[in-house]
């Protein structure tokens, strides 16, 4: 570059630094994740432990290749699979039924509606910003805020934690799993529904309002139909997810395949575990394919509707077609499946000991006879979380004095004053002081799921970007249409093979739930952060590769033509990736949010951190402490949700 060029550059504005800042943030997040918690990489770096892990993996693979195929066990597994399916169906149905009213309450557009200048009328044209977000301005706004709080709590407490609480109320069994799933999914669906409804452009349903429709009419005839396709598509994705979670929730007493897998792992019956995992895969992959198919139909409908819109065909318009029967068929099918699930849960199930039929719906009766609520009274202590206030000098003076005397009270500046902030020793001394306060330790334990989620998501996203290339039909099967290549048959076959292999890897990676990946990695590498991170990364890889691939394959092939001699791989990196990047990052942030919740769950089954602490304190009946951890869990989810929303990174179901 000549001097003249440099001068011209200086004149022509600064180099934009956005990508450097993003990379810096990513590096900082990774560094923070590495230093906030103690990583034990020995399982991967130490040669001996690596050899041990490899041996365990080999043994497990051998067992997996020779599963227990005795007729008796197969029948048992099949029954458990059906039980899992029925639990997932019931959980999802219940969640949809509960989520609708909750989402209607939580949606600003539906619940608050058009805000006239009322009692708190503001003279400014845009209204007072503070006032517009003040929940006490009207009863409807208060209801809206309350519904949002409820949905946040339902969503933030993972289904596994709900299951632990429900087990204590109504005992073990698939119904417990179904209810736990229902509670968590209600929160998730309500959040997404309300966001989708709020996301509908107001001008599109303004005419319903101008016809005199009230809030309910506006919702039913304006907002709901406009968002229905996205609502349906997201519900399907959640239903698929519910099936995956139902398959593992048995680990904490939720019944189904998970309980049996957990039981057999404890006995080291790897052949039986292999069979059960095969059945899990059968179930989740079937659900995966079915949901793909239906979502494809929905997309096709949308495309057809869009292409039909501009033409006005007089001849076709004259013949009024009868209403399409397909929605009714679909509805009938859904109702039949729900009825079957109810029947199966209650009377059809023979997965108990010795093939004895047991009515799993019976515990639900306890919810109404009040016996379960008596059990719940036992947990009232959960609602009075331990804040350990004497440690920070608040509360009755004698308690505070006692803590001081024991040297267990926080005296932050005992050794180093605030002026010493440049010295690293001061920071570690401050941390040691703070750790004397229980609440601080609870907050610190949230670093573990966060670190796991950060590292796992980054690994998963990176792997998904690499896997999307062989996974993409555009680049493997149709590349000749934009690269002018005439591929000989063997080359086409080779690329087809790569595509099939990539799709199989992605399907298995997402078909096996995170918790099951964690079971496996714990079995290989021992419990700890590494196993949890690998589990999150593997599942993220599978989930993201599918949506990443869709984003690439939805681009018209014409977009890849003017690439100035770039090879196929280069075209992927330089054209396809930038084109899809925004969508990819939206999906990645959404996945990160769900990975944080998943990492809490992994804590429950032995990865450590927040989930582990909750479970530990809960099992030892230290409910006050468990309550504190529960609050940290909720705060963690809510904070991440709010910050992602603030950065405007999350857009669901466009």
């Amino acid at each position: 570059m000549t001097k003249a060029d440099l001068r011209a550059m200086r004149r022509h504005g600064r180099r934009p630094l956005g990508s450097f800042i993003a990379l810096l943030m990513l590096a900082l997040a990774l560094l923070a994740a590495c230093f906030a918690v103690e990583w034990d990489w020995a399982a991967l770096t130490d040669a001996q432990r690596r050899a041990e892990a490899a041996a365990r993996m080999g043994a497990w693979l051998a067992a997996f290749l020779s599963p227990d195929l005795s007729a008796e066990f197969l029948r048992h597994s099949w029954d458990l699979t059906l039980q899992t399916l029925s639990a997932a169906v019931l959980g999802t149905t219940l969640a949809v039924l509960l989520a609708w009213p909750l989402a209607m309450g939580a949606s600003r557009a539906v619940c608050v509606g058009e805000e006239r200048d009322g009692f708190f009328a503001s003279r400014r044209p845009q209204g007072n910003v503070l006032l517009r977000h003040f929940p006490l301005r009207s009863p409807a706004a208060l209801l809206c805020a309350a519904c949002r709080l409820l949905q946040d709590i339902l969503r933030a407490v993972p289904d596994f934690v709900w299951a632990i609480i429900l087990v204590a109320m109504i005992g073990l069994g698939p119904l417990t799993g179904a209810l736990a799933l229902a509670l968590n999914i209600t929160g998730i669906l309500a959040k997404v529904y309300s966001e989708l409804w709020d996301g509908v452009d107001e001008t599109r349903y303004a005419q319903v309002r101008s016809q005199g429709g009230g809030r309910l009419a506006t919702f039913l005839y304006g907002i709901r139909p406009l968002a229905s396709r996205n609502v349906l598509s997201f519900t399907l994705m959640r239903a698929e997810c519910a099936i995956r979670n139902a398959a593992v929730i048995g680990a904490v007493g939720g019944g189904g395949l998970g309980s049996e897998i957990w039981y057999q792992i404890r006995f080291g019956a790897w052949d039986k575990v292999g069979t059960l995992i095969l059945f899990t895969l059968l179930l989740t992959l079937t659900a995966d394919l079915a949901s793909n198919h239906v979502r494809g139909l929905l997309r096709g409908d949308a495309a057809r509707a869009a292409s039909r819109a501009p033409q006005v065909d007089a001849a076709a318009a004259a013949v009024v077609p009868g209403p399409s029967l397909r929605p009714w068929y679909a509805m009938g099918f859904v109702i039949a499946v729900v009825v079957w699930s109810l029947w199966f849960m209650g009377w059809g199930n023979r997965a108990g000991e010795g093939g004895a039929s047991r009515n799993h719906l019976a515990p639900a009766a306890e919810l109404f006879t009040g016996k379960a609520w008596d059990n719940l009274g036992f947990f009232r202590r959960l609602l009075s979380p331990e804040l350990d206030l004497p440690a920070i000098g608040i509360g009755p003076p004698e308690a505070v004095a006692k803590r001081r005397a024991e040297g267990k009270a926080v005296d932050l500046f005992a050794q180093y004053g605030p002026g010493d902030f440049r010295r690293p020793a001061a920071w570690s001394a401050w941390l040691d002081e703070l750790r004397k306060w229980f609440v601080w330790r609870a907050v610190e334990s949230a670093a573990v799921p966060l670190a796991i989620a950060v590292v796992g998501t980054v690994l998963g996203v990176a792997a998904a970007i690499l896997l999307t290339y062989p996974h993409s039909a555009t680049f493997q099967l149709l590349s000749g249409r934009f690269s002018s290549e005439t591929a000989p048959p063997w080359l086409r076959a080779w690329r087809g093979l790569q595509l099939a292999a990539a799709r199989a890897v992605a399907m298995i990676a997402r078909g096996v739930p995170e918790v099951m990946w964690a079971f496996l990695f714990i079995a290989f590498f021992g419990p700890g952060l590494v196993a949890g991170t690998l589990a999150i990364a593997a599942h993220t890889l599978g989930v993201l590769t599918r949506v990443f691939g869709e984003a690439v394959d939805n681009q018209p092939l014409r977009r890849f033509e003017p690439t100035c001699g770039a090879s196929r791989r280069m075209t992927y990196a330089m054209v396809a990736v930038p084109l899809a990047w925004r969508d990819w990052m939206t999906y990645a942030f959404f996945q990160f949010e769900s990975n944080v919740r998943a990492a809490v769950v992994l804590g429950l089954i032995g990865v450590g951190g927040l989930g582990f602490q909750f479970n530990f304190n809960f099992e030892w009946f230290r409910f006050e402490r468990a309550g504190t951890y529960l609050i940290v869990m909720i705060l963690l989810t809510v904070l991440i949700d709010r910050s992602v929303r603030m950065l405007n990174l999350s857009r669901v179901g466009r």
Partner: protein
Amino acid sequence: MAIDIHSPPPVAIEHAAVSYGRRRVLDGIQVSVAHGERVAVIGPSGAGKTTLFRLIAGLAKPAEGRVATLGRDVARLRGKDLARLRREVGFLHQQDNLIPQLRVVHNVLMGRLGHWWLPRALWSLLWPQELGRAMQALSRVELADRLWALPDELSGGQQQRVAVARLIVQQPRLVLADEPVSALDLRLGREIIGLLCELAGRDGATLLVNLHSLDLLQGNFDRVIALRAGRVYWQGAPADINQQLLRELYGAEYRALHLDEMALPA
């Protein structure tokens, strides 16, 4: 760029035909273009102009006959031959030439992708490589001050100029411009065609332009190829076009395009 007189012609089409399904879109095409020649392709919509360009680029394969672009048979492109051909053929479309998510500098530097290996290309997204080249090309299209802009911040004419700057960086031996100015008004269109012709003149590239409007023919091109219903209807110098020819060529579209208002010999 020195032109080797003995090398095969940039475009040689012999009796080529292209079918989509059962329909013949092009039939019996016999076209040869010499080094450095500037050729305009005209004809009514659906005559097969775009398909002719796709045929030359190898994106559409001939059902019959033989097509050689820069001396390479397009029906058997792969490996090194394919890479070289793609490096030496530059495209300019009516729209969507630029990647909207990438800044102007990256879009321009895409012209170098054929010469870079993948790590360098990726690094270039973060720290643009051969920035001087991009600056020079952008100065030639008078957009040097928009180096760091996003394509959406530019007007349609500016976007086409950025695409031309990419061609300047790519230095192709053959430029295929498929209706490059149809989305622009006449003045901007003239500017783009002028830039393309200058590119051809200065770097010795061969230029094929597919034109929808005939106002830009005069003075810019050496030869005109008129297509009608998938066949070459007429070839000749731009000065030889007359109203009679246009009426026969365009048929029903003749009046719609206001061709009768053009100042041409009757």
